[in-house]
């Protein structure tokens, strides 16, 4: 009686997979900006993943997962019919969906999966949505079609210029703001360094900015404090007080350091895993 069965899977780009998973209770309550905690199997760790989409009637949720280490790579090998052992959620506070006028979404890499449901909800609320989605190179571009459907304007950037506009999302954001666009809100998710840059730019323009933070989590229910971040000089727990915070008040340098706490252990875990897979295990 596995509960969380994978009913569909697609590869969006190299090392980026989209999953549809049966999880009726979560689908019923999910809101944009929330996430789940997934544990693959008995020996698995608990990792947070954003709810990309969901359907309450059919009882499924959708996740977009980038393979960056042991657990996400292992999940990448799960196929339709397989099941994951535990999924808890929806966790975190939903994004505050309001009428802001113009909203600019700035997301990098798999951060676009984090932004998508938020962008969609903001558009449905009546905002004009300009989405800037950025990737390293052409073959890593994901969700472009999806963003075109729910945005008034989409700017795709690639670092190497192999597709869309050459440069970083932050370059596109800067030109947009300098061209006189006056958003009521900028929403950002992606690499910490990018979110930090976004915050610096919008601060100069005095634009309200939310960042969806991604610190290391364990339980996701406020019980451990692994996910603590400093916002306006105060320690808060991203899993219960966030994950969205006013980007102008976040200590991004601390967040970046804390995300690197286990790089040594993560390397060991990955090496061991790759060894077992290559031995056909």
């Amino acid at each position, binding site marked *: 009686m596995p509960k969380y069965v994978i009913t569909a899977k697609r590869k969006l780009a190299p090392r980026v997979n989209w999953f549809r998973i049966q999880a009726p*209770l*979560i689908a019923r*309550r999910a809101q944009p900006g929330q996430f789940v905690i997934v*544990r693959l199997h008995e*020996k*698995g*760790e*608990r990792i947070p993943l954003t709810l990309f989409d969901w359907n309450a009637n059919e009882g499924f949720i959708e996740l977009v997962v980038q393979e960056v280490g*042991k*657990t996400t790579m292992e999940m990448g090998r799960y196929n339709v019919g397989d099941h994951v*052992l*535990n*999924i*808890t*959620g*929806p*966790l975190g506070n939903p994004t505050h969906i309001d009428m802001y006028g113009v909203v600019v979404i700035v997301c990098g890499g798999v951060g676009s999966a984090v932004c998508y449901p938020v962008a969609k909800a903001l558009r449905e609320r009546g905002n004009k949505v300009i989405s800037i989605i950025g990737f390293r190179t052409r073959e890593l571009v994901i969700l472009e079609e999806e963003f075109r459907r729910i945005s008034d304007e989409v700017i795709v950037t690639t670092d190497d210029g192999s597709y869309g506009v050459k440069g970083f999302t932050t370059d596109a954001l800067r030109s947009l703001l300098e061209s006189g666009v006056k958003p009521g809100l900028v929403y950002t998710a992606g690499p910490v360094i990018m979110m930090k840059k976004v915050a610096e730019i919008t601060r100069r323009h005095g634009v309200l900015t939310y960042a969806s933070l991604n610190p290391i989590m*364990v*339980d996701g*229910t*406020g*019980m*451990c*404090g*692994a996910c*603590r*971040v*400093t916002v306006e000089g105060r*320690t808060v727990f991203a899993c*219960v007080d966030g994950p969205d915070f006013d980007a102008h008040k976040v200590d991004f340098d*601390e967040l970046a*350091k*804390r995300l690197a*706490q*286990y790089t040594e*252990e*993560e390397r*060991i*875990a990955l090496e*061991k895993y790759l060894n077992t897979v290559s031995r056909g295990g």
Partner: protein
Amino acid sequence: MSTGGSRVKKKRVPVPRREPAERIRDFNEVVLGYTLEQAMEEASRCLQCPLNFAPCVKGCPVHVNIPGFLRKLREGDVKGALEIIMETNPLPGITGRVCPQEEQCERNCIMGRIGDRINIGKLERFVADYARKHGIRPEVKIPPSTGKKIAIVGSGPAGLTAAAELRKMGHEVRVFEALHEPGGVLVYGIPEFRLPKEIVRYELEYLSKIGVEILTDVVVGKTLSLRDLLTEYDAVFLGTGAGTPNFLNIPGVNCLNIYSANEFLTRVNLMKAYLFPEYDTPIKKPNRVAVIGGGNTAMDAARSALRLGSREVYVLYRRTKELMTARQEEVENAEEEGVKFMFLVSPVEFVCDDKGRVKAVRLIKMRLGEPGRDGRPRPIPIPGSEFELEVDAVIIAIGQTPNRILFKDIPELKLTEKGTIVVDEKYRTTVKGVFAGGDAIRGESTVVKAMGDGWKAARSIDEYLKTGE
């Protein structure tokens, strides 16, 4: 054999424990427990005070019929003893291990006036262990269903006891647990070497055998709302515990390798990080660790760190040894294993290296002043006495406040200043049909007090189901 010996035996039958040097190398249990012969001999020392008088029973928050089970035990009737214990205590293998017996049942034992008090805890544990190893199950008769449905939020000792009691009254009971494994602190906090998880799992099996359903991965307030529960169930019991860790509000507290005790213990126990990389969850294996605090949680964190291979583990406490809140037995175990204690010190800053990793704790010396509001002497900093202790990890074990994730969902639920749920003498909260107990109403307390709450709340819930009050 000792049964019915006419002369009172003043000395306790000692309990075998593993040698410190051996036990700090693994996470296996430290205290080994009695054999049947030893248990019968220890049980035979009991004076069999009449039940309505027996002071030991009065000291037990769930009122285990202690002389009753000891009588069966000294006759060698383990099943009989188990059935008597489980009339009021569904988790004997757990309480026998983790209750602060010296402050509860054993504290009151009459034998204390002429010799050693009866080792009630270890005997309770013996009965549970022997029964488990020999496949002895208590016979329980569940009355026909009353048709009433009760939702229990949280699967710690409070929730589990309420669930067992309500089920034994014939109600339909379903438990919702946020984590992937039921048990609360029993599975994520208290380490394997004090409470093997196999025992928690076995005692949980008893609950499913009597028909209690436990659903994991359900965060009430998120996955389901409390309102959902109130529509679908006739009553709700909140046993959500006190799981939110306090951090020190001093510079450097977010440096790398500074853990809350909850995070450290959750990684080690629930996620089995001590078996990394066989298990996926990582943990730092530091050389020099400072544990801040003086309670059970601090002892568990310090002893776990030793077992992960730390060479030096310091417990830093701002009061004196006598004022520590940890169980005495656990302090002794920690000392034997080589944990070092520093008393009358308090951290003022954590110093980090350029990568953001903690490298020292700055401490200030303290002295004891007048008793504060809680009646305990208040520690006062001695100006100019700061010094540094070099460490490469810190575990903060200075207490926890109630889990709040549910509270946002239901503003009518009244809380105290400390964040605990307000209840009346019948465990009723300010929301009709919602009851609460355990750490959620007390703040940090003990397993058996949480169980006592669950036990009494079950009776109030039963009354509510019958009378609507």
